[in-house]
């Protein structure tokens, strides 16, 4: 069973008088445990594809299946449950909740999932240590650097061990050292926990870690190749 299956996806946005095809009859299968990198120039459709896979955006036509469940016809509540249980998100702009501390941000998803306080605390401390943020647990996002914030976002995305992690330009605001550390963390999770990663990026360094490169242009897949990761 595929971790992600997209069949004939179409999505058109209207910008002024112009229709822009973000997804143009796109189909793709991603198996469990794959480490996939989506690449395209700006406007190529990779973020739209990620949003469709994550149930954040509904395609105009076509089907999206996650872990054997068709999600493009689900209600908002069902999609929320699916994201909560199965998908970890890492966004380009960190996207932390500013009124919560680093630890509370990491615990947020687990709290919504209903995980017990002691377990949450234990896991959040462990994951923050794993991403190199030990000692910064009580800091709020405004008190951390961009790299630290992104690591908190990554910690939040992976702390509950989702089957699928979707990352949109996760290294766009990071320096090269932090980017490397982040990608090594992703690789470790992929290899040790069989977590499926789908990462949309321009970053050549990120592409080097991927086992599969999917190149997109104008909403279509133009190249789909396996490679040996770095």
């Amino acid at each position: 069973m595929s971790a992600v299956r997209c069949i004939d996806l179409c999505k058109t946005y209207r910008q002024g008088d112009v229709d822009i095809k973000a997804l143009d009859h796109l189909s793709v299968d991603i198996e469990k445990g794959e480490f996939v990198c989506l690449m395209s120039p700006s406007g190529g459709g990779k973020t739209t594809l990620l949003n469709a896979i994550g149930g954040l955006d509904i395609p105009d036509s076509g089907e999206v299946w996650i872990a054997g469940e068709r999600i493009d016809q689900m209600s908002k509540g069902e999609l929320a449950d699916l994201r909560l249980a199965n998908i970890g998100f890492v966004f380009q702009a960190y996207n932390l909740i500013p009124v919560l501390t680093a630890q509370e941000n990491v615990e947020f998803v687990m709290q919504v999932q209903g995980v017990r306080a002691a377990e949450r605390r234990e896991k959040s401390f462990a994951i923050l240590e794993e991403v190199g943020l030990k000692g910064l647990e009580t800091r709020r996002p405004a008190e951390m650097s961009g790299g630290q914030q992104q690591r908190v976002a990554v910690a939040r995305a992976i702390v509950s061990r989702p089957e699928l992690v979707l990352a949109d330009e996760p290294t766009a605001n990071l320096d090269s050292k932090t980017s490397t550390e982040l990608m090594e963390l992703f690789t470790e999770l992929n290899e040790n926990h069989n977590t499926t990663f789908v990462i949309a990026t321009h970053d050549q360094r990120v592409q080097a870690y991927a086992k599969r490169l999917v190149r997109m242009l104008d909403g279509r897949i133009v190249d789909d190749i396996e490679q040996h990761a770095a």
Partner: protein
Amino acid sequence: MQMFFVLSRLAWRYLWRNHRRTIVMLSAIAVGTWAMIFMTALTRGMVDQMIVDGISVIPGHVQIHDPEYLDDPSVNNRVAFSDTELATRFGDAGFTAWAARVRVPAVVTSERESRGITLLGIDPAAEKSFSFVDYDNVDGRFLEGPNDKGIVLGAKLADTLETRVGKRVVLMSQDPDNEIADRGFRVVGLFHAEMETTEESYAFVGKHTAQNMLRIGDTVSEVVFLGEDYRDVEPVYSKVVGLVDDSVRVSRWTEVDTYLGTMMGMMDGFMLIWVIVIFLALSFGLVNTLVMAVFERIREIGLMLALGMKPSSILGQILIESMMLLAVGLAIGDLLAWATIKPLESGIDISVVAKGMEMFGAASVLYPNLDIDDVILSNVVVMILGFLASLSPAWRASRYEPVEAITKV
């Protein structure tokens, strides 16, 4: 429960994210709540006093009359109980107080003026519990017994009649045969009342003296009873009903003085309207605060939705935020109201405007009454209306599409 805790923590943190806005809104809610409760306490105090004064002067809590008396309060419609019979029926029944009185319309004439009045023939000892007159604060003296041959007028009436203590006036009414019943009285005292209209309307003579003048033997116009609380007269009413037969009519004070009865009901309605009016003014600020609070965190709402929080939880978060804001504002407003009303419970002198107040029966000293039911009413109404007013911004927040919200700049 865990979700409620999560939402509450988020709501509380977001509330204090913009301290200044929250403090301004809290101040508005607190002042609004204070105004609601303070005005309600003043009005409640005024109405309570009007009712208590009104009941003391006329109806007591329960009365008995001839069945025709309330329609035609003339000397023909009397309670045919003798003094002995009255004492037998009611003397040991355990009433807080009771009194039998003659009460008829009459004309009082001095050598210069005449005025229509209500003549009360009373036993001063029995009447003391009902009377608005402070027996010790009378110019001259008050009546000394049911056989007293003097008359006590209101100070204002004496002014109008251009008479004074020691002078004589003539009382004129009708006897049961519709013949003129009149008699000269020496003015022995002038009483003072909170309201000038009361001073102008009543004259007191001894009960037996009045009975003799009106040639009605030992019958009376009415017997009045006092219970513990004018708001709950049913125990007294039931007791009186059990002690009399169908030859008399037993009435609660609200039936005898429909104006006061209606006023008490109207007061509750007025307070509800007052609370709602204040809240409507507050609601603009509340809704604006919530709309702004939602607007400035659209991205974060999108993020929460993207992470798997359900729209209903977003709705709950905004509503909890609103309820917290209201609860804190109400608590401050309640405290403020308590702190300002308590020191004023000994009375506020409004004599400057007392003449105007008298037109609707209020006294010149207001005693604010902080009634816990009024506080609860205003708090509950504000919370319920606040909840309803918050629904719109909360609903809008929960309807955001995560992908659109998360990309908002």
